[in-house]
């Protein structure tokens, strides 16, 4: 009997702690499949964030470091400078990457660090129980925006791919989603390209995954995906924001 589907080698046997319907599991799998397909597990080091995916270090079979909140790009920079022939990726949420770690994010990007950043944007702080994130939408109700995000006092959500794509140091920036088979396939290709760029020494690549948080949004997984399509995708359009991986390098 032929095996047609199995767990990627780059994922450990540890069961995910994620909530039912959380897309982290899908994205973890796409990253692990990429590591397997490129045959780089033995020389890959991942950097986990603080947030729901803090324990990603238990799930990926490659060497892993758990960084302080927001500092993954700095940790990855030190790591990559020490190990230029290894593959280094960070896996970060929106609070980690776009609030407390925005300084580290922008500077790692503008230096053109040859790393891969996987950014999960679900417009909320999941692990701490659903507070307003830098990417929470105008009017979005969270524990700390109980009357809806009021842009007059809380400002506007940050579009990370658009922001980073203005920097000369960025090689590749693409926003994807994992709410359908078609989008999962697009996301997989994007993630694989982001890792391949690094293998080929092409520089900084970021993949933003517009995601959901059924638990803290108070929705079923399917309702959450629909809410994401109706509300997040208009604000965070999917697509390639920057790609200088062909030609220029």
């Amino acid at each position, binding site marked *: 009997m032929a095996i047609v589907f199995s767990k990627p080698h780059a994922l*450990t046997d540890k069961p995910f702690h994620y909530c039912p319907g959380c897309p982290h599991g899908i994205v973890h799998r796409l990253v692990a499949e990429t590591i397997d397909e490129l045959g780089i*597990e*033995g*020389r*890959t*080091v991942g*950097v*986990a964030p603080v947030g729901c995916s*803090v*324990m990603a*270090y*238990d799930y*990926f*079979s*490659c*060497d*892993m*470091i*758990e*960084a*302080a909140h927001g*500092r993954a790009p*700095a*940790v*990855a*920079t*030190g*790591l*990559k*400078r*020490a*190990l230029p022939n*290894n593959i280094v990726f960070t896996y970060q949420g929106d609070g980690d990457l776009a609030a407390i770690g925005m*300084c*580290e994010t*922008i*500077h790692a990007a503008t230096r053109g660090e040859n790393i891969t950043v996987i950014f999960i944007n679900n417009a909320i702080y999941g692990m701490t129980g659903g507070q307003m994130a830098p990417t929470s939408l105008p009017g979005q109700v969270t524990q700390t925006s109980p009357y809806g995000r009021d842009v007059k006092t809380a400002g506007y959500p940050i579009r990370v791919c658009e922001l980073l794509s203005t920097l000369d140091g960025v090689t590749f920036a693409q926003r994807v989603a994992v709410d359908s088979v078609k989008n999962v396939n697009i996301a997989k290709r994007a993630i694989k390209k982001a890792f391949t760029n690094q293998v080929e020494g092409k520089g900084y690549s970021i993949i933003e995954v517009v995601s959901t948080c059924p638990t803290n949004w108070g929705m079923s997984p399917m309702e959450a995906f629909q809410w994401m399509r109706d509300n997040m995708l208009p604000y965070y359009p999917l697509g390639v924001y920057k790609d200088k991986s062909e030609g220029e390098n």
Partner: protein
Amino acid sequence: MNERVLMKGNEALAEAAICAGCRHFFGYPITPQTEVAAYMAKRMPKIGGTYLQAESEIAAINMVLGASSAGVRAMTSSSSPGISLKSEGISYIAGSDLPALIVNVQRGGPGLGGIQPSQSDYWQATKATGHGDFHMLVFAPSTVQEMVDLVFDAFDLGDKYRMPAMLFLDGMLGQMMEPVILPDPSSRPVIEKPWAANGHQGKRPHNIIKSLYLEPQELERTIIERFKRYDHIKATEQRAEEYLTDDADIIIVAYGASSRIARSAVNTARSMGIKAGLIRPITLWPFPVDIINKNVENTKAFLSVEMSMGQMVDDVRLVVNGRRPVSFFGRTGGIIPTPDEVLEQIKAINGGM
């Protein structure tokens, strides 16, 4: 044996780090440690090393964490306000059992304070550089040569005990020019790092470098294990220099730049017939408890001299534990005490005995 050369403190420190095998320096500009970074920026590219000017002190210390996780010797240098920013990263480095060299060329605080020499970060360095139950090794040289030697020790002991080490200076030593001989790195032990996150190459289970333990029992266990290491360090790594303590009635305790001033005052006091002596802590953590303790019974009084409002004096009092009077003299805010001021203190104590 390397030859004797005249070097400025901050540059000697940087060259010593390179000699000790450090090829990764991450910094951020701040007075008065700029020469360390400038020297590294000039030297590192020529020897295949990394000099990276980070976007912040916070980023710099986390770059050190990343490089150290990879198993290489990494360092950062800063001055007081910058060390406050690094304290988050230092806590993570300690909690992740990583070595790292952190240089603090102290200036006056609190806040932006000033840019003149100070020793007012003693509490921060020895008690609370960041949150949580942890310590780091703290070395306080008083000459440029000793600074060079301690750079090697800080790297070696940091690697051996898997913990951060701080070279604790003040602006004076950094700016001073003195003759130095750089140590021979080939005489130092090679320390393996099987814990490094440098890619498992399919030959071992994956290494995880982290400070997170959600189970309280597990977290307590890791901390107790770390404190057993600290106990061993306290028992074996205390260092201090004793100067004229054998028959001293009054013993000054002073480190770094203050110890040089105190030594002058001790010499003058001796010429006046006052039996003064000096204990100069070289390790501030572990504090040289044993060396102070063995002098308590044979002396009459202690005087802690610092460039602060009195921080190390707490540790002196803990050792002396009421058996002898312990007084304090210090200047702060970037003011360096003069030998005459210290001598006046010695004479006052002597007169009161």
